[in-house]
Protein backbone atom coordinates (compact mmCIF):
# COMPACT_ATOMS: atom_id res chain seq x y z
CA UNK A 1 0.00 0.00 0.00
CA UNK A 2 1.32 3.36 -0.71
CA UNK A 3 0.95 5.89 2.02
CA UNK A 4 -0.67 9.23 1.68
CA UNK A 5 -1.23 10.70 5.08
CA UNK A 6 2.45 10.67 5.73
CA UNK A 7 4.89 12.97 7.46
CA UNK A 8 4.85 14.99 4.31
CA UNK A 9 1.72 16.84 5.21
CA UNK A 10 3.90 19.70 6.40
CA UNK A 11 5.40 19.74 2.97
CA UNK A 12 1.97 19.92 1.51
CA UNK A 13 1.09 22.82 3.73
CA UNK A 14 4.21 24.71 2.74
CA UNK A 15 3.41 24.00 -0.89
CA UNK A 16 0.08 25.72 -0.39
CA UNK A 17 1.70 28.61 1.39
CA UNK A 18 4.24 29.02 -1.38
CA UNK A 19 1.56 28.92 -4.01
CA UNK A 20 -0.33 31.51 -2.03
CA UNK A 21 2.71 33.75 -1.86
CA UNK A 22 3.33 33.39 -5.55
CA UNK A 23 -0.28 34.18 -6.25
CA UNK A 24 0.08 37.25 -4.11
CA UNK A 25 3.11 38.38 -6.12
CA UNK A 26 1.14 37.98 -9.30
CA UNK A 27 -1.89 39.83 -8.03
CA UNK A 28 0.25 42.71 -6.85
CA UNK A 29 0.51 43.64 -10.50
CA UNK A 30 -3.24 44.00 -10.56
CA UNK A 31 -3.10 46.15 -7.46
CA UNK A 32 -0.49 48.32 -9.15
CA UNK A 33 -2.76 48.74 -12.13
CA UNK A 34 -5.70 49.51 -9.92
CA UNK A 35 -3.52 52.01 -8.06
CA UNK A 36 -2.45 53.67 -11.26
CA UNK A 37 -5.96 53.82 -12.62
CA UNK A 38 -7.15 55.20 -9.33
CA UNK A 39 -4.45 57.87 -9.25
CA UNK A 40 -5.15 58.79 -12.85
CA UNK A 41 -8.91 58.66 -12.61
CA UNK A 42 -9.33 60.51 -9.35
CA UNK A 43 -7.93 63.66 -10.92
CA UNK A 44 -9.07 63.00 -14.47
CA UNK A 45 -12.68 62.87 -13.38
CA UNK A 46 -12.63 66.46 -12.24
CA UNK A 47 -10.66 67.35 -15.36
CA UNK A 48 -13.32 65.87 -17.59
CA UNK A 49 -16.04 67.58 -15.64
CA UNK A 50 -14.55 70.84 -16.87
CA UNK A 51 -13.33 69.78 -20.29
CA UNK A 52 -15.50 67.70 -22.55
CA UNK A 53 -14.12 64.41 -23.77
CA UNK A 54 -15.12 65.38 -27.27
CA UNK A 55 -12.93 68.44 -27.12
CA UNK A 56 -10.16 66.38 -25.58
CA UNK A 57 -10.22 63.90 -28.42
CA UNK A 58 -10.96 66.10 -31.40
CA UNK A 59 -9.37 69.47 -30.70
CA UNK A 60 -6.16 69.82 -32.66
CA UNK A 61 -4.30 72.03 -30.21
CA UNK A 62 -2.90 71.40 -26.77
CA UNK A 63 -2.43 74.67 -24.88
CA UNK A 64 -3.69 74.06 -21.34
CA UNK A 65 -1.05 76.30 -19.80
CA UNK A 66 -1.76 79.27 -22.00
CA UNK A 67 -4.27 81.95 -21.31
CA UNK A 68 -6.21 80.72 -24.31
CA UNK A 69 -6.64 77.13 -23.26
CA UNK A 70 -7.19 74.31 -25.73
CA UNK A 71 -7.34 70.75 -24.59
CA UNK A 72 -6.76 68.56 -27.62
CA UNK A 73 -4.63 65.55 -26.74
CA UNK A 74 -3.97 64.62 -30.36
CA UNK A 75 -0.74 66.61 -30.75
CA UNK A 76 0.79 64.80 -27.77
CA UNK A 77 -0.40 61.45 -29.03
CA UNK A 78 1.08 62.19 -32.43
CA UNK A 79 4.38 63.15 -30.84
CA UNK A 80 4.46 59.99 -28.77
CA UNK A 81 3.61 57.86 -31.73
CA UNK A 82 6.20 59.54 -33.90
CA UNK A 83 9.15 59.20 -31.55
CA UNK A 84 8.20 55.65 -30.66
CA UNK A 85 7.89 54.69 -34.27
CA UNK A 86 11.29 56.12 -35.12
CA UNK A 87 12.87 54.43 -32.13
CA UNK A 88 11.45 51.05 -33.05
CA UNK A 89 12.36 51.55 -36.70
CA UNK A 90 15.94 51.95 -35.51
CA UNK A 91 16.02 49.39 -32.74
CA UNK A 92 14.08 46.53 -34.26
CA UNK A 93 16.20 45.84 -37.34
CA UNK A 94 19.45 46.56 -35.58
CA UNK A 95 18.56 44.72 -32.40
CA UNK A 96 17.19 41.66 -34.12
CA UNK A 97 20.11 41.56 -36.52
CA UNK A 98 22.51 41.71 -33.61
CA UNK A 99 20.64 38.95 -31.82
CA UNK A 100 20.77 36.72 -34.86
CA UNK A 101 24.32 37.62 -35.68
CA UNK A 102 25.50 36.88 -32.18
CA UNK A 103 23.61 33.63 -32.00
CA UNK A 104 24.17 32.22 -35.43
CA UNK A 105 27.38 33.75 -36.71
CA UNK A 106 29.53 35.00 -33.88
CA UNK A 107 31.88 32.92 -31.85
CA UNK A 108 30.79 31.99 -28.33
CA UNK A 109 33.34 34.08 -26.52
CA UNK A 110 32.67 37.03 -28.78
CA UNK A 111 29.01 36.79 -27.92
CA UNK A 112 29.79 36.49 -24.25
CA UNK A 113 31.68 39.78 -24.40
CA UNK A 114 29.48 41.73 -26.79
CA UNK A 115 26.15 41.02 -25.19
CA UNK A 116 26.82 42.60 -21.81
CA UNK A 117 28.72 45.41 -23.50
CA UNK A 118 25.65 46.28 -25.52
CA UNK A 119 23.51 46.03 -22.42
CA UNK A 120 25.47 48.96 -21.08
CA UNK A 121 23.65 51.04 -23.68
CA UNK A 122 20.46 50.54 -21.72
CA UNK A 123 22.07 51.64 -18.50
CA UNK A 124 23.37 55.04 -19.54
CA UNK A 125 21.27 57.71 -17.84
CA UNK A 126 18.76 59.05 -20.30
CA UNK A 127 19.77 62.63 -19.56
CA UNK A 128 23.07 61.80 -21.23
CA UNK A 129 21.26 60.45 -24.25
CA UNK A 130 19.19 63.57 -24.42
CA UNK A 131 22.19 65.83 -24.61
CA UNK A 132 23.83 63.47 -27.08
CA UNK A 133 20.82 63.75 -29.34
CA UNK A 134 20.73 67.52 -29.01
CA UNK A 135 24.41 68.32 -29.34
CA UNK A 136 25.74 65.53 -31.54
CA UNK A 137 23.04 63.80 -33.52
CA UNK A 138 20.98 66.83 -34.52
CA UNK A 139 23.94 68.89 -35.82
CA UNK A 140 25.21 65.79 -37.62
CA UNK A 141 21.87 65.17 -39.29
CA UNK A 142 21.48 68.82 -40.16
CA UNK A 143 24.36 68.40 -42.60
CA UNK A 144 22.22 66.04 -44.66
CA UNK A 145 18.72 67.21 -43.91
CA UNK A 146 18.49 70.93 -44.54
CA UNK A 147 15.05 71.46 -43.07
CA UNK A 148 15.89 69.79 -39.77
CA UNK A 149 15.03 71.96 -36.78
CA UNK A 150 17.34 72.17 -33.80
CA UNK A 151 14.79 70.26 -31.78
CA UNK A 152 13.10 67.44 -33.59
CA UNK A 153 11.50 64.06 -33.23
CA UNK A 154 14.03 62.43 -35.52
CA UNK A 155 17.16 62.74 -33.39
CA UNK A 156 15.28 61.98 -30.23
CA UNK A 157 13.73 58.91 -31.84
CA UNK A 158 17.01 57.66 -33.24
CA UNK A 159 18.82 58.03 -29.94
CA UNK A 160 15.95 56.42 -28.10
CA UNK A 161 16.21 53.58 -30.60
CA UNK A 162 19.87 53.16 -29.79
CA UNK A 163 19.02 53.08 -26.12
CA UNK A 164 16.54 50.23 -26.51
CA UNK A 165 18.69 48.15 -28.87
CA UNK A 166 19.93 45.95 -26.04
CA UNK A 167 16.38 45.25 -24.90
CA UNK A 168 15.70 43.67 -28.25
CA UNK A 169 19.14 42.21 -28.90
CA UNK A 170 19.66 40.63 -25.50
CA UNK A 171 16.19 39.33 -24.88
CA UNK A 172 15.84 38.06 -28.44
CA UNK A 173 19.22 36.40 -28.24
CA UNK A 174 18.16 34.70 -25.04
CA UNK A 175 15.02 33.49 -26.74
CA UNK A 176 16.88 32.24 -29.80
CA UNK A 177 19.52 30.43 -27.81
CA UNK A 178 16.80 28.72 -25.82
CA UNK A 179 15.57 26.98 -28.95
CA UNK A 180 16.61 23.33 -28.62
CA UNK A 181 19.84 22.49 -30.34
CA UNK A 182 18.15 19.64 -32.17
CA UNK A 183 16.12 22.12 -34.20
CA UNK A 184 19.17 24.02 -35.25
CA UNK A 185 20.84 20.77 -36.21
CA UNK A 186 17.84 19.73 -38.23
CA UNK A 187 17.98 22.98 -40.15
CA UNK A 188 21.71 22.79 -40.82
CA UNK A 189 21.35 19.13 -41.66
CA UNK A 190 19.05 20.17 -44.48
CA UNK A 191 21.70 22.41 -45.95
CA UNK A 192 20.35 25.70 -44.67
CA UNK A 193 22.71 28.60 -44.67
CA UNK A 194 23.07 30.36 -41.36
CA UNK A 195 20.69 33.02 -42.58
CA UNK A 196 18.10 30.46 -43.57
CA UNK A 197 18.47 28.65 -40.29
CA UNK A 198 18.04 31.91 -38.45
CA UNK A 199 14.98 33.16 -40.27
CA UNK A 200 13.47 29.85 -41.26
CA UNK A 201 13.70 28.02 -37.96
CA UNK A 202 15.23 29.87 -35.05
CA UNK A 203 13.32 33.13 -35.26
CA UNK A 204 9.92 31.45 -35.71
CA UNK A 205 10.67 29.01 -32.91
CA UNK A 206 11.71 31.89 -30.66
CA UNK A 207 8.95 34.17 -31.87
CA UNK A 208 7.18 34.44 -28.56
CA UNK A 209 10.31 35.62 -26.79
CA UNK A 210 11.22 37.97 -29.61
CA UNK A 211 7.76 39.46 -29.65
CA UNK A 212 7.99 40.03 -25.93
CA UNK A 213 11.29 41.81 -26.34
CA UNK A 214 9.75 44.05 -28.96
CA UNK A 215 6.75 44.84 -26.80
CA UNK A 216 9.02 45.69 -23.91
CA UNK A 217 11.09 47.88 -26.17
CA UNK A 218 8.03 49.68 -27.49
CA UNK A 219 6.77 50.15 -23.98
CA UNK A 220 10.06 51.58 -22.89
CA UNK A 221 10.06 53.94 -25.85
CA UNK A 222 6.51 55.04 -25.16
CA UNK A 223 7.35 55.69 -21.54
CA UNK A 224 10.70 57.36 -22.10
CA UNK A 225 10.83 60.95 -20.99
CA UNK A 226 14.14 62.70 -20.66
CA UNK A 227 15.49 62.14 -24.16
CA UNK A 228 12.43 63.62 -25.79
CA UNK A 229 12.18 66.36 -23.20
CA UNK A 230 15.70 67.53 -24.00
CA UNK A 231 16.04 66.86 -27.70
CA UNK A 232 12.59 66.93 -29.26
CA UNK A 233 11.54 70.39 -28.17
CA UNK A 234 8.42 70.92 -26.14
CA UNK A 235 5.99 72.03 -28.74
CA UNK A 236 2.77 70.07 -28.89
CA UNK A 237 2.06 69.88 -32.56
CA UNK A 238 -0.25 67.70 -34.56
CA UNK A 239 2.18 66.43 -37.14
CA UNK A 240 3.93 63.29 -38.27
CA UNK A 241 6.82 65.29 -39.67
CA UNK A 242 9.93 64.06 -37.84
CA UNK A 243 11.93 67.17 -38.70
CA UNK A 244 10.15 69.66 -36.44
CA UNK A 245 9.85 70.06 -32.68
CA UNK A 246 7.11 68.03 -31.02
CA UNK A 247 6.08 67.07 -27.55
CA UNK A 248 5.22 63.66 -26.18
CA UNK A 249 2.76 62.76 -23.46
CA UNK A 250 5.51 61.75 -21.09
CA UNK A 251 7.46 64.92 -21.60
CA UNK A 252 4.39 66.95 -20.88
CA UNK A 253 3.63 65.02 -17.73
CA UNK A 254 7.11 65.31 -16.29
CA UNK A 255 7.43 68.98 -17.16
CA UNK A 256 4.22 69.86 -15.42
CA UNK A 257 4.65 67.63 -12.42
CA UNK A 258 8.12 68.96 -11.72
CA UNK A 259 7.30 72.49 -12.77
CA UNK A 260 5.85 75.48 -11.01
CA UNK A 261 2.20 74.88 -11.88
CA UNK A 262 -0.03 74.92 -8.81
CA UNK A 263 -1.19 71.47 -7.86
CA UNK A 264 -4.90 70.92 -7.82
CA UNK A 265 -5.51 73.36 -10.64
CA UNK A 266 -7.09 72.43 -13.93
CA UNK A 267 -3.73 72.91 -15.59
CA UNK A 268 -2.18 70.43 -13.23
CA UNK A 269 -4.95 67.91 -13.75
CA UNK A 270 -4.21 67.79 -17.45
CA UNK A 271 -1.30 65.48 -16.69
CA UNK A 272 -3.66 62.89 -15.30
CA UNK A 273 -5.86 63.08 -18.34
CA UNK A 274 -2.76 62.79 -20.51
CA UNK A 275 -1.52 59.89 -18.41
CA UNK A 276 -4.85 58.18 -18.72
CA UNK A 277 -4.71 58.60 -22.47
CA UNK A 278 -1.27 57.03 -22.56
CA UNK A 279 -2.48 54.22 -20.37
CA UNK A 280 -5.38 53.48 -22.68
CA UNK A 281 -3.07 53.82 -25.65
CA UNK A 282 -0.61 51.23 -24.38
CA UNK A 283 -3.43 49.05 -23.19
CA UNK A 284 -4.82 48.92 -26.71
CA UNK A 285 -1.37 48.28 -28.12
CA UNK A 286 -0.76 45.42 -25.75
CA UNK A 287 -4.11 43.88 -26.43
CA UNK A 288 -3.43 43.88 -30.10
CA UNK A 289 0.00 42.34 -29.76
CA UNK A 290 -1.28 39.80 -27.29
CA UNK A 291 -3.93 38.84 -29.73
CA UNK A 292 -1.42 38.50 -32.55
CA UNK A 293 0.84 36.42 -30.37
CA UNK A 294 -2.01 34.16 -29.36
CA UNK A 295 -3.11 33.61 -32.87
CA UNK A 296 0.38 32.95 -34.03
CA UNK A 297 1.13 30.51 -31.26
CA UNK A 298 -2.02 28.50 -31.64
CA UNK A 299 -0.90 27.57 -35.07
CA UNK A 300 2.09 25.58 -33.95
CA UNK A 301 1.93 24.81 -30.29
Amino acid at each position, binding site marked *: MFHLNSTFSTLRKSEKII*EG*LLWLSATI*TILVTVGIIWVLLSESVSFFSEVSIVEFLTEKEWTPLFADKKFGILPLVAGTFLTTFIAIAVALPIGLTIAIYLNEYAHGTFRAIIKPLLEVLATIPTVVYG*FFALTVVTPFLQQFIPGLAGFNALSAGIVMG*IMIIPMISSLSEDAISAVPRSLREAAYGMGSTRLQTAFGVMVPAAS*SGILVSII*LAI*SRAVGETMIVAIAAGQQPRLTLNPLVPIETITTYIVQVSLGDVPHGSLEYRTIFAAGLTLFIFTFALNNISFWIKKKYQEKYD
Partner: protein
Amino acid sequence: MTNSDINRYKDKAFQIFGIFCTLIGLVVLAVFLIDIAIDGISRIDWDFLTSLPSRRASSAGIYTAWAGTLWILVLTAVIAFPLGVGAAVYLEEYSRKTKLANFLEINIANLAGVPSIIYGLLGLEIFVRQMRLGGSLLAGALTLSLLILPIIIVTTRESIKAVPRSVRDGSYALGASKWQTIWNQVLPASFGGILTGIILALSRAVGEAAPLIVIGALAYVPFAPTTPLDEFTVLPIQIFNWTSRPQEAFLTNAAGAIIVLLCITFLLNGIAVYLRLRQQKKVKW
Protein backbone atom coordinates in the same frame (compact mmCIF):
# COMPACT_ATOMS: atom_id res chain seq x y z
CA MET B 1 24.01 32.74 -60.58
CA THR B 2 22.45 29.67 -59.02
CA ASN B 3 19.97 29.78 -56.24
CA SER B 4 22.48 28.53 -53.76
CA ASP B 5 24.97 31.20 -54.76
CA ILE B 6 22.30 33.77 -54.10
CA ASN B 7 21.64 32.18 -50.74
CA ARG B 8 25.31 32.24 -49.95
CA TYR B 9 25.63 35.88 -50.88
CA LYS B 10 22.60 36.68 -48.81
CA ASP B 11 24.20 34.83 -45.96
CA LYS B 12 27.45 36.72 -46.35
CA ALA B 13 25.63 40.00 -46.76
CA PHE B 14 23.73 39.38 -43.59
CA GLN B 15 26.90 38.52 -41.78
CA ILE B 16 28.41 41.82 -42.81
CA PHE B 17 25.21 43.59 -41.87
CA GLY B 18 25.30 41.82 -38.53
CA ILE B 19 28.84 42.95 -37.86
CA PHE B 20 27.85 46.41 -38.97
CA CYS B 21 24.89 46.54 -36.60
CA THR B 22 26.92 45.23 -33.72
CA LEU B 23 29.53 47.83 -34.51
CA ILE B 24 26.95 50.60 -34.56
CA GLY B 25 26.02 49.64 -31.05
CA LEU B 26 29.59 49.38 -29.93
CA VAL B 27 30.72 52.56 -31.63
CA VAL B 28 27.89 54.57 -30.14
CA LEU B 29 28.71 53.09 -26.78
CA ALA B 30 32.39 53.91 -27.21
CA VAL B 31 31.54 57.46 -28.27
CA PHE B 32 29.46 57.84 -25.15
CA LEU B 33 31.97 56.38 -22.82
CA ILE B 34 34.88 58.30 -24.28
CA ASP B 35 32.90 61.52 -24.36
CA ILE B 36 31.84 61.13 -20.77
CA ALA B 37 35.29 60.03 -19.71
CA ILE B 38 36.93 63.03 -21.34
CA ASP B 39 34.49 65.35 -19.62
CA GLY B 40 34.43 63.75 -16.26
CA ILE B 41 37.33 61.49 -15.47
CA SER B 42 39.56 64.32 -14.31
CA ARG B 43 36.91 65.31 -11.81
CA ILE B 44 36.87 61.98 -10.06
CA ASP B 45 39.02 61.82 -7.02
CA TRP B 46 38.67 60.83 -3.43
CA ASP B 47 37.23 64.19 -2.45
CA PHE B 48 34.59 64.00 -5.14
CA LEU B 49 33.46 60.66 -3.81
CA THR B 50 33.47 61.67 -0.18
CA SER B 51 32.24 65.25 -0.22
CA LEU B 52 28.77 66.58 0.37
CA PRO B 53 26.89 68.66 -2.18
CA SER B 54 28.03 72.26 -2.51
CA ARG B 55 27.29 75.39 -4.45
CA ARG B 56 30.88 75.39 -5.61
CA ALA B 57 31.35 72.89 -8.35
CA SER B 58 34.94 72.31 -7.39
CA SER B 59 34.17 71.27 -3.85
CA ALA B 60 30.84 69.54 -4.53
CA GLY B 61 30.87 65.81 -4.05
CA ILE B 62 28.57 62.88 -4.58
CA TYR B 63 28.97 61.03 -1.32
CA THR B 64 25.31 61.16 -0.34
CA ALA B 65 24.24 60.53 -3.92
CA TRP B 66 26.15 57.35 -4.51
CA ALA B 67 25.35 56.11 -1.06
CA GLY B 68 21.68 56.73 -1.80
CA THR B 69 21.94 55.04 -5.17
CA LEU B 70 23.50 51.94 -3.65
CA TRP B 71 20.82 51.84 -1.00
CA ILE B 72 18.10 52.23 -3.59
CA LEU B 73 19.63 49.57 -5.80
CA VAL B 74 19.90 47.01 -3.08
CA LEU B 75 16.47 47.74 -1.64
CA THR B 76 14.85 47.71 -5.05
CA ALA B 77 16.51 44.43 -5.96
CA VAL B 78 15.51 42.90 -2.65
CA ILE B 79 11.90 43.96 -3.14
CA ALA B 80 11.48 43.48 -6.87
CA PHE B 81 13.40 40.25 -7.34
CA PRO B 82 11.23 37.94 -5.23
CA LEU B 83 8.05 39.73 -6.26
CA GLY B 84 8.85 39.65 -9.95
CA VAL B 85 10.18 36.12 -10.08
CA GLY B 86 7.36 34.96 -7.84
CA ALA B 87 4.74 36.49 -10.08
CA ALA B 88 6.41 35.04 -13.15
CA VAL B 89 6.57 31.58 -11.63
CA TYR B 90 2.96 31.79 -10.63
CA LEU B 91 1.85 32.84 -14.08
CA GLU B 92 4.00 30.33 -15.89
CA GLU B 93 3.66 27.29 -13.66
CA TYR B 94 0.55 27.61 -11.57
CA SER B 95 -2.09 29.62 -13.28
CA ARG B 96 -4.26 27.82 -15.77
CA LYS B 97 -4.73 29.38 -19.13
CA THR B 98 -7.80 31.19 -17.99
CA LYS B 99 -9.25 34.58 -18.74
CA LEU B 100 -7.59 35.81 -15.57
CA ALA B 101 -4.20 34.64 -16.79
CA ASN B 102 -4.73 36.40 -20.09
CA PHE B 103 -5.77 39.50 -18.28
CA LEU B 104 -2.70 39.35 -16.06
CA GLU B 105 -0.48 38.94 -19.06
CA ILE B 106 -1.87 41.96 -20.87
CA ASN B 107 -1.92 43.89 -17.65
CA ILE B 108 1.76 43.30 -17.03
CA ALA B 109 2.81 44.20 -20.54
CA ASN B 110 0.71 47.27 -20.04
CA LEU B 111 2.43 48.28 -16.86
CA ALA B 112 5.74 48.16 -18.69
CA GLY B 113 4.55 51.03 -20.83
CA VAL B 114 3.40 53.31 -18.05
CA PRO B 115 5.80 56.24 -17.91
CA SER B 116 7.97 56.32 -14.86
CA ILE B 117 6.62 59.63 -13.68
CA ILE B 118 3.20 58.05 -13.20
CA TYR B 119 4.78 55.49 -10.94
CA GLY B 120 6.14 58.49 -9.10
CA LEU B 121 2.62 59.86 -8.65
CA LEU B 122 1.44 56.43 -7.53
CA GLY B 123 4.30 56.10 -5.07
CA LEU B 124 3.56 59.57 -3.73
CA GLU B 125 -0.06 58.66 -3.07
CA ILE B 126 0.46 55.17 -1.70
CA PHE B 127 3.84 54.91 -0.08
CA VAL B 128 4.53 58.49 0.89
CA ARG B 129 1.05 59.55 1.96
CA GLN B 130 -1.09 56.48 2.72
CA MET B 131 1.69 54.38 4.20
CA ARG B 132 3.34 57.45 5.69
CA LEU B 133 6.82 56.51 4.61
CA GLY B 134 7.61 60.07 3.58
CA GLY B 135 10.36 60.71 1.06
CA SER B 136 12.34 57.80 2.42
CA LEU B 137 14.57 55.26 0.74
CA LEU B 138 11.93 52.65 1.33
CA ALA B 139 9.28 54.70 -0.45
CA GLY B 140 11.69 55.25 -3.32
CA ALA B 141 12.68 51.61 -3.57
CA LEU B 142 9.05 50.48 -3.43
CA THR B 143 8.17 52.90 -6.20
CA LEU B 144 11.04 51.77 -8.40
CA SER B 145 10.22 48.14 -7.65
CA LEU B 146 6.76 48.60 -9.06
CA LEU B 147 8.31 50.37 -12.02
CA ILE B 148 10.61 47.47 -12.93
CA LEU B 149 8.31 44.66 -11.88
CA PRO B 150 6.84 44.17 -15.37
CA ILE B 151 10.27 43.89 -16.96
CA ILE B 152 11.33 41.26 -14.46
CA ILE B 153 8.11 39.31 -14.77
CA VAL B 154 8.08 39.28 -18.53
CA THR B 155 11.72 38.29 -18.96
CA THR B 156 11.56 35.70 -16.21
CA ARG B 157 8.53 34.11 -17.80
CA GLU B 158 10.32 33.82 -21.08
CA SER B 159 13.30 32.08 -19.57
CA ILE B 160 11.09 29.77 -17.55
CA LYS B 161 9.24 28.89 -20.71
CA ALA B 162 12.49 27.93 -22.36
CA VAL B 163 13.15 25.11 -19.88
CA PRO B 164 12.28 21.91 -21.74
CA ARG B 165 9.19 19.99 -20.75
CA SER B 166 11.29 16.84 -20.44
CA VAL B 167 13.27 18.25 -17.53
CA ARG B 168 10.09 19.04 -15.64
CA ASP B 169 8.72 15.59 -16.45
CA GLY B 170 11.88 14.01 -15.13
CA SER B 171 11.55 15.85 -11.89
CA TYR B 172 7.85 15.21 -11.38
CA ALA B 173 8.31 11.55 -12.13
CA LEU B 174 10.73 11.34 -9.22
CA GLY B 175 8.04 12.52 -6.88
CA ALA B 176 8.97 16.16 -6.81
CA SER B 177 6.21 18.51 -5.86
CA LYS B 178 5.50 21.44 -8.07
CA TRP B 179 7.53 23.81 -5.99
CA GLN B 180 10.41 21.36 -5.66
CA THR B 181 10.51 21.04 -9.43
CA ILE B 182 10.46 24.78 -9.84
CA TRP B 183 13.06 25.35 -7.19
CA ASN B 184 15.44 22.55 -8.16
CA GLN B 185 15.08 22.46 -11.91
CA VAL B 186 13.18 25.29 -13.50
CA LEU B 187 14.69 28.23 -11.68
CA PRO B 188 18.31 27.03 -11.85
CA ALA B 189 17.93 26.22 -15.53
CA SER B 190 16.46 29.61 -16.32
CA PHE B 191 18.68 31.56 -14.00
CA GLY B 192 20.74 33.08 -16.81
CA GLY B 193 17.72 34.57 -18.51
CA ILE B 194 16.25 35.76 -15.26
CA LEU B 195 19.47 37.56 -14.47
CA THR B 196 19.50 39.31 -17.83
CA GLY B 197 16.03 40.61 -17.14
CA ILE B 198 16.85 41.77 -13.67
CA ILE B 199 19.94 43.56 -14.82
CA LEU B 200 18.09 45.33 -17.55
CA ALA B 201 15.44 46.22 -15.03
CA LEU B 202 17.79 47.44 -12.35
CA SER B 203 19.79 49.39 -14.89
CA ARG B 204 16.60 51.15 -15.71
CA ALA B 205 15.83 51.80 -12.06
CA VAL B 206 19.28 53.11 -11.33
CA GLY B 207 18.98 55.82 -13.97
CA GLU B 208 15.59 57.17 -12.93
CA ALA B 209 15.34 60.64 -11.48
CA ALA B 210 11.86 61.95 -12.17
CA PRO B 211 9.72 59.50 -10.19
CA LEU B 212 12.01 59.81 -7.22
CA ILE B 213 11.79 63.58 -7.29
CA VAL B 214 8.03 63.29 -7.33
CA ILE B 215 7.92 61.07 -4.29
CA GLY B 216 10.15 63.55 -2.52
CA ALA B 217 13.72 62.42 -2.95
CA LEU B 218 15.94 65.39 -2.29
CA ALA B 219 18.70 67.14 -4.12
CA TYR B 220 20.63 68.41 -1.15
CA VAL B 221 21.13 65.93 1.66
CA PRO B 222 24.14 66.55 3.85
CA PHE B 223 24.17 63.06 5.37
CA ALA B 224 24.30 59.56 4.00
CA PRO B 225 21.30 57.39 4.83
CA THR B 226 21.76 54.78 7.51
CA THR B 227 18.35 53.15 7.58
CA PRO B 228 15.73 52.50 4.89
CA LEU B 229 13.56 55.17 6.46
CA ASP B 230 16.05 57.96 5.92
CA GLU B 231 15.73 60.71 3.39
CA PHE B 232 18.02 60.40 0.43
CA THR B 233 19.23 61.60 -2.90
CA VAL B 234 20.51 59.56 -5.82
CA LEU B 235 23.07 60.08 -8.56
CA PRO B 236 20.57 60.71 -11.37
CA ILE B 237 18.99 63.54 -9.38
CA GLN B 238 22.39 65.03 -8.75
CA ILE B 239 23.29 64.62 -12.42
CA PHE B 240 19.98 66.06 -13.54
CA ASN B 241 20.43 68.95 -11.16
CA TRP B 242 23.97 69.68 -12.23
CA THR B 243 23.27 69.51 -15.95
CA SER B 244 20.72 72.25 -15.56
CA ARG B 245 23.08 74.61 -13.75
CA PRO B 246 24.52 77.48 -15.72
CA GLN B 247 28.13 77.01 -14.67
CA GLU B 248 30.21 74.86 -17.00
CA ALA B 249 32.04 73.32 -14.04
CA PHE B 250 28.83 71.65 -12.91
CA LEU B 251 28.60 69.90 -16.25
CA THR B 252 32.00 68.41 -15.54
CA ASN B 253 30.70 67.32 -12.16
CA ALA B 254 27.73 65.73 -13.87
CA ALA B 255 30.03 63.82 -16.19
CA GLY B 256 32.02 62.64 -13.20
CA ALA B 257 28.84 61.51 -11.48
CA ILE B 258 27.74 59.72 -14.63
CA ILE B 259 31.02 57.83 -14.65
CA VAL B 260 30.41 56.73 -11.09
CA LEU B 261 26.85 55.74 -11.94
CA LEU B 262 28.10 53.71 -14.87
CA CYS B 263 30.72 52.07 -12.70
CA ILE B 264 28.01 50.95 -10.35
CA THR B 265 25.98 49.47 -13.18
CA PHE B 266 29.11 47.93 -14.72
CA LEU B 267 29.81 46.23 -11.47
CA LEU B 268 26.27 44.95 -11.42
CA ASN B 269 26.51 43.78 -15.01
CA GLY B 270 29.84 42.18 -14.35
CA ILE B 271 28.46 40.06 -11.57
CA ALA B 272 25.51 39.04 -13.68
CA VAL B 273 27.60 38.26 -16.73
CA TYR B 274 29.82 36.09 -14.63
CA LEU B 275 26.86 34.21 -13.21
CA ARG B 276 25.26 33.90 -16.59
CA LEU B 277 28.39 32.48 -18.18
CA ARG B 278 28.74 29.94 -15.44
CA GLN B 279 25.14 29.06 -15.95
CA GLN B 280 25.40 28.68 -19.72
CA LYS B 281 28.30 26.32 -19.35
CA LYS B 282 26.15 24.11 -17.20
CA VAL B 283 22.93 24.21 -19.17
CA LYS B 284 23.00 23.25 -22.81
CA TRP B 285 20.38 21.24 -24.54
